[in-house]
């Protein structure tokens, strides 16, 4: 095919097109958006991402062809299309301090290809959705400039062929996330939510930077292929290759710091250090413990942003990075176990918080954190395909859920006119009747997330749970290291079953809170009648908006101050959203139901798994042992799927019983029976308060101290005191600058007389230079100076006459002293004399030196 000739595998410049289109869109919308008008901005935003999606499809086909060409051998290696933009810089690192090139290089392989399709595809649908959702917002052009910039940054993150390029995208998506969370920045809480996200991510980025430095110095490479080649040096057990945790940088403490010096330095392998640092970065970006706190607050942004950035794409970047560097993570079973632990702990924590939230977006936010925890659990047990598959399915069902929630909020807002009240599920109910498309797509996505059998979420979550049970991470170099007497930590045998049990509990909670949200929102009677009042009678613009379906309120409007005098007045019913909102919902809802067919592990139909196999081949080579052997594990597959199904049934049935049959009454009873537990969950485990009391309070104390230092020491002593001294001198000198010519003349004359007197009187000064035992004494020169000396120190002047002899050499015994005399006569015939004491070389020091030399 001709296309292949245009784009060879090693210079696949179509990547440049995929990347450039959203960037151009962002640039044009950002610079000229306000002048172009909304239709042009819409066209620009949609066409740039849409064309990027089409180019991605072409690239994916080319990748498929390249992978076919490689064949299906055991070790065919991963097909890869790469494009080198330019060499950015280079550094040195590795065992032999070789050159480490840092190139602006992009590549598509099986993993990034799938991710690229998800980002551009889901991204396009959400752009389409946003053109309607944001239609009445004054910041329309700015919004799409940010959104396009986000798609560009995310593509850089995914397609980057080395860590520095990934880091550019990593920071870029962080920036866009910050800008979009604080999109309505005139509200303080939105702006501070943006800052919180930015700062939490920055802590993670510190880890990622450390990982980059460690990788460059340990493996001598920063690109994926190079790191894969050099990965073996990360487990080098020799002393020099280890990372010293304490003392830092192998320092040596002496003196009063002696107590800090351990008897044996505490070291970990480079693999563990790199894994921990990468994990810190991933927890920041993917909202895991301990850095997950920013994601729930990030819901302050517009709903399409929550769907695109904080559910479908950006937050999965951490999972993507773990998959990408899977061959580094598997080298340290301890780090793998930690990844799994963080994942399951986050899943449980976030799910328990989601149980009691009333804000529909907060429920979905904690649900996202919880599902990301499942993904971490998956990759943490070495089930990279399962973890990534959950990224893939989650992108569909969670984007669909968020967009559905946005559709609901939009409908509620045009009735309630209050940002907070229109997101509160207690004001909803019965929306099934008014918004059928939104309802059915929401049902489809909910079915997927709660693991309704044979939906996409069922397959991805069950595979994670199954792998959590049977997988056992071991070091791939176990035997080699054992031969050198190095033992690598391994998880205990109860670890897998524990993860499985906790995972099933988390899945049960997921089913419960999602069904609860579904029921509260769409079933029963609409409770919004009594919240806001009918507004069209009072507001002309609302009448208009009621007529043209698809009106979205600018969220910048403030409606909260309206008097709610007649609460029962029936008003305008909530209405279905226009096609630009429902079409993405339908597409994503369908994908949420059926995307599971791509990887049906229980039916042994795994096209996605086979597609991704080459990517994870190196990572899975000898790093995962199946509990009880392959056959045993195989036999466990269906029984273990029962846990996931049971979680679905129990959670759903419980939620149905509580919220449909008993109308929420058991939940109220439980909340009143256990008020402290209930408050604890509503307060989100008080993690924010804990962070405020510890980390933030410490930082603030430090800041207060620095401020006091600045105020008293820098400002008070350094600045003010210095200024005072200068000002004092100034006032003193100002007295002389009186502007009267005679005074100046007098000073001039006095100064001239002083210089004249200095010239008239001779000045006998000497410079002494030691040259061994002899010392050279040299008199300074002056106008018409002549000299005579008493150089031998006998008290008598040596010469009768004054002469030009300005230098004499004096011999002084070590330890002795000699007094010589100089007389100087100048041109006016005036004579002055000076006595000079000359000490011999330091006698005791010389003896010490000799003694040392003798030893």
């Amino acid at each position: 095919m001709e296309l292949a000739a245009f784009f060879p595998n090693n210079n696949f410049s179509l990547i440049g097109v995929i990347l450039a289109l959203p960037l151009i869109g962002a640039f044009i919308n950002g610079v000229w958006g306000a002048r172009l008008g909304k239709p042009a901005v819409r066209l620009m935003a949609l066409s740039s991402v849409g064309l990027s999606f089409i180019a991605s499809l072409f690239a994916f086909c080319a990748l498929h062809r390249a992978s076919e060409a490689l064949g299906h051998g055991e070790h065919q290696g991963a097909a890869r299309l790469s494009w080198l933009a330019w060499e950015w810089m280079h550094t040195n690192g590795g065992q032999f301090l070789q050159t480490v090139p840092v190139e602006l290089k992009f590549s598509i392989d099986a993993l990034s290809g799938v991710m690229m399709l998800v980002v551009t595809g889901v991204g396009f649908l959400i752009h389409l959705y946003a053109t309607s959702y944001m239609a009445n917002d004054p910041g329309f052009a700015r919004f799409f400039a940010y959104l396009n910039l986000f798609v560009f940054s995310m593509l850089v993150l995914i397609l980057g062929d080395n860590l520095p390029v990934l880091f550019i995208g990593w920071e870029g998506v962080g920036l866009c996330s910050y800008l979009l969370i604080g999109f309505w920045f005139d509200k303080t809480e939105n702006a501070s939510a943006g800052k919180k996200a930015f700062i939490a991510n920055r802590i993670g980025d510190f880890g990622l930077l450390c990982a980059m430095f460690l990788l460059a110095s340990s493996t001598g490479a920063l690109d994926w292929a190079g790191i894969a080649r050099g990965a073996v040096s990360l487990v080098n057990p020799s002393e020099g290759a280890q990372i010293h945790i304490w003392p830092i940088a192998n320092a040596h403490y002496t003196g009063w710091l002696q107590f800090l010096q351990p008897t044996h330095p505490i070291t970990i392998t480079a693999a563990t250090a790199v894994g921990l640092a990468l994990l810190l970065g991933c927890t920041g970006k993917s909202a895991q413990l301990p850095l997950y706190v920013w994601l729930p607050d990030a819901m302050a942004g517009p709903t399409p942003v929550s769907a695109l950035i904080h559910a479908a794409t950006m937050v999965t970047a951490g999972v993507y990075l773990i998959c990408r560097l899977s061959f580094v993570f598997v080298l340290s079973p301890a780090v793998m176990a930690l990844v799994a632990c963080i994942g399951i702990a986050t899943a449980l924590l976030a799910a328990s918080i989601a149980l009691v939230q009333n804000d529909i977006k907060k429920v979905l936010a904690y649900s996202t954190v919880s599902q990301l925890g499942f993904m971490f659990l998956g990759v943490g047990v070495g089930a990279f395909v399962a973890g990534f598959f959950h990224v893939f399915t989650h992108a569909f069902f969670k984007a669909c859920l968020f967009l559905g929630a946005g559709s609901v909020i939009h409908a509620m807002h045009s009735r309630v006119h209050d940002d907070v009240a229109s997101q509160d599920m207690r004001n909803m109910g019965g929306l099934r009747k008014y918004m059928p498309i939104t309802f059915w797509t929401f049902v489809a996505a909910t079915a997927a997330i709660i693991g309704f059998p044979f939906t996409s979420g069922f397959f991805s979550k069950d595979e994670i749970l199954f792998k959590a049970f049977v997988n056992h991470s071991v070091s791939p170099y176990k035997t080699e290291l054992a031969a050198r007497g190095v033992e690598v930590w391994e998880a205990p045998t109860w670890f897998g079953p524990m993860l499985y049990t906790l995972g099933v509990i988390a899945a049960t909670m997921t089913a419960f809170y999602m069904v609860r949200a579904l029921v509260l929102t769409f079933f029963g009677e609409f409770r919004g009648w009594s919240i806001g009042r009918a507004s069209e009678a009072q507001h002309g613009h609302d009448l208009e908006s009621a007529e043209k379906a698809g009106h979205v309120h600018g969220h910048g409007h403030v409606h909260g101050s309206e008097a709610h005098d007649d609460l029962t007045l029936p008003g305008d019913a909530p209405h279905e959203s226009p096609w630009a909102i429902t079409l993405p919902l339908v597409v994503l809802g369908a994908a949420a139901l059926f995307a599971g067919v791509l990887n049906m592990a229980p039916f042994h139909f795994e096209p996605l798994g086979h597609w991704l196999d080459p990517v994870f081949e190196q990572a899975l080579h000898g790093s995962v042992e199946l509990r009880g052997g392959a056959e045993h594990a195989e036999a466990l597959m269906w029984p273990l799927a029962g846990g996931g199904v049971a979680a679905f049934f129990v959670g759903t049935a419980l939620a149905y019983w509580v919220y449909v049959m008993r109308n929420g009454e058991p939940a109220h009873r439980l909340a009143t029976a256990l008020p402290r537990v209930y408050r604890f969950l509503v307060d989100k485990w008080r993690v924010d308060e804990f962070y405020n009391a510890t980390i933030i309070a410490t930082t603030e104390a430090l800041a207060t101290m620095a401020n006091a230092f600045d105020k008293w020491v820098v400002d008070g002593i350094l600045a003010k005191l210095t200024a005072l001294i200068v000002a004092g001198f100034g006032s003193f000198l100002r007295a002389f600058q009186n502007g009267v010519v005679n005074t100046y003349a007098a000073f001039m004359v006095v100064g001239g007389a002083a210089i004249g007197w200095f010239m008239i009187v001779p000045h006998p000064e000497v410079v002494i230079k030691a040259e061994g035992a002899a010392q050279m004494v040299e008199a300074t020169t002056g106008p018409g100076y002549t000299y005579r000396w008493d150089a031998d120190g006998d008290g008598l002047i040596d010469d009768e006459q004054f002469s030009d002899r300005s230098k004499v050499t004096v011999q002084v015994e070590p330890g002795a002293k000699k007094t010589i005399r100089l007389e100087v006569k100048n041109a006016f015939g005036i004579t002055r004399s000076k006595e000079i004491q000359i000490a011999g070389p330091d006698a005791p020091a010389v003896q010490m030196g000799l003694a040392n030399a003798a030893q």
Partner: protein
Amino acid sequence: MSTMNLDHFVVLSAILFTIGSIGFLVRRNVIVTLMSIEIMLNAVNLALVAFNRAHPANYSGQIFTFFVIAAEAAEVAIGLAIVLAMFRLHRTIRTDDATLLKN
């Protein structure tokens, strides 16, 4: 009367310089101040010429004197112009009154 030696010239020069500087300090009339400066400069000129006579290897002392005379002429031209401008402004030429820069 014995020939005048260098000392006489130097002493005369010193006396002239002292008269000039005292005049420069104590008199308040700008014209007189300028004249005092002239006396000081001429004292220097006298010393230069006298030293040149004592060390006649080259004429640098005499040539330097010409430069000083040229500088004097320029200085007097500018100085008198300033005196004129000052007189037009203040109707006086006393240095005590030339205090515009004081504040």
